């Protein structure tokens, strides 16, 4: 174990050194007279929701306020609440569980992070409406500072819920080159998470460190190209302890705790193009390749088309497809308990499709009959996403391979 941790530290230290060297090589040799603009005054309120065919519902309103305190500095505060029905599973395990190796009762073992035995999404005439019985609060405070041709941003984030807390620090530096035609952003994200499931009597840690490097280049007056890369080191408790593993031993069904490796190195690289098709429309095409130390590999493509319906109306239509392989220890059925085992369907092979619709209404002449929209600094945002995911084996809890989800967002943005 100690050797593994030393290797882990050496791997992270190696990435840090390369990251620092890259940073100084690039930024040490460039300077620019262009002062960069930090984010301006803005208040944004969003009301978002998620509903899926596994009877999980989430409502997550949020408010974000950015204040420019000087020409070179702005600060941002953000607050988000997740209201969740049964953070995971609610509607009854369809297997014939008779015993469990966990300390939990049947209800607690297979239901939510809330530990509640009632509530959840609407499940028919008796409970037609969802009851939100799990709440997560997320607080974010950050600032952006213009520094010698670049922008430095630092954010602190704290998230708390009944069985999970997370403290995160995010730092990004963006340097602009070539008369602002190119920019390189280097970022680091460090999280300290604590996990304490209600069905367990222990508390465990999860630590995450992420390095990002993004490069954006204006190629012409109609074309922008962006390259994004991410390297993430996750260590500690990496399993979801509400996702139990059913194993039948000598005719008796038992539920076992999942066991995941305590280290996961995750990498992703993406390429994106934004192109102006004609005067009133643009298209963005993207491709991402992801691979990690658990042998999950994924290819993601996306396309997004935006067009002006009128001076005040922007319509967006998007499509996204993701295909992934399964983790090396994922099995649809385990015959006996193994060193590593999981029932987390995110680690199964499969594919997903998403269709995105967006309507942005910009205030000003022409839409002043709508509330607040006589002011051109106001913007309404409406998003509606339809998502489906098909995995190669069914979910352990409800025996379904197909997940359908709808995600919406209604936002109002005021820039002043």
């Amino acid at each position, binding site marked *: 174990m100690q050797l593994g941790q030393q290797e882990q530290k050496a791997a992270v230290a190696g990435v840090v050194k390369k990251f620092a060297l890259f940073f100084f090589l690039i930024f040490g040799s460039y300077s620019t007279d262009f002062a960069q603009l930090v984010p301006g005054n803005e208040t944004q309120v969003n009301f978002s929701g998620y509903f899926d065919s596994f009877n999980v519902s989430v409502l997550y309103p949020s408010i974000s306020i950015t204040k420019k305190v000087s020409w070179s500095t702005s600060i941002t505060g953000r607050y988000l609440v997740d209201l969740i029905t049964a953070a995971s599973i609610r509607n009854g395990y369809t297997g014939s569980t008779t015993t469990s190796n966990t300390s939990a009762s049947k209800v607690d073992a297979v239901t939510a992070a809330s530990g509640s035995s009632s509530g959840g999404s609407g499940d028919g005439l008796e409970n037609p409406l969802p009851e939100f019985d799990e709440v997560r609060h997320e607080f974010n405070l950050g600032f952006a500072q213009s520094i010698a041709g670049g922008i430095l941003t630092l954010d602190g984030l704290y998230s708390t819920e009944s069985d999970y807390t997370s403290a995160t620090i995010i730092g990004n530096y963006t340097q602009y080159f070539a008369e602002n035609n190119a920019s390189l952003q280097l970022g680091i*994200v460090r999280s300290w998470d604590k996990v304490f499931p209600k069905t367990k009597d222990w508390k465990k840690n999860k630590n995450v460190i992420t390095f990002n490097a993004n490069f954006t*280049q204006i190629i012409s007056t109609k074309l922008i190209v962006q390259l994004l890369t991410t390297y993430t080191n996750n260590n500690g408790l990496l399993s979801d302890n509400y996702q139990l593993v059913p194993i039948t031993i000598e005719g008796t069904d038992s539920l076992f705790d999942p066991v995941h490796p305590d280290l996961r190195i995750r990498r992703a690289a993406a390429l994106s193009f934004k192109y102006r098709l004609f005067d009133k429309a643009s298209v963005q095409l993207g491709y991402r390749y992801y691979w990690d130390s658990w042998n999950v590999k994924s290819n993601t493509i996306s396309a997004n088309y935006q067009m002006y319906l009128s001076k005040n109306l922007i319509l967006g239509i998007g499509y996204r497809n993701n295909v992934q392989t399964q983790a090396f220890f994922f099995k649809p059925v385990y015959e006996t308990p193994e060193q590593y085992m999981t029932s987390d369907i995110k680690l199964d092979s499969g594919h997903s499709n998403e269709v995105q619709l967006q309507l942005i209404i910009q205030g000003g002449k022409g839409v002043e009959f709508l509330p607040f929209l006589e002011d051109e600094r106001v913007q309404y945002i409406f998003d509606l996403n339809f998502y489906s995911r098909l995995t190669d084996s069914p979910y352990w809890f409800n025996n379904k391979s197909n997940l359908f989800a709808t995600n919406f967002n209604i936002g109002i943005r005021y820039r002043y």
Partner: protein
Amino acid sequence: MSIRIRILLPFFGALLLYGCATVKPWGKEGLADPIMIIDENPINAGIKEHFIDYREGAVGATGAESGGCGCG
């Protein structure tokens, strides 16, 4: 292809692109149009990313920040 090459390839590509002709400030009016800005609304992008993180095994390289929920 080795992992190092996969990581470095985008940067080599970026350096090549860096050599492309630059657009002068007076030619950038169209690029300031909301439909031409990548991540025009990062908060909105983060909200979309948030629910994908719960549902898939792959994360990262999206330019959006999400997390704090044990969803990864």
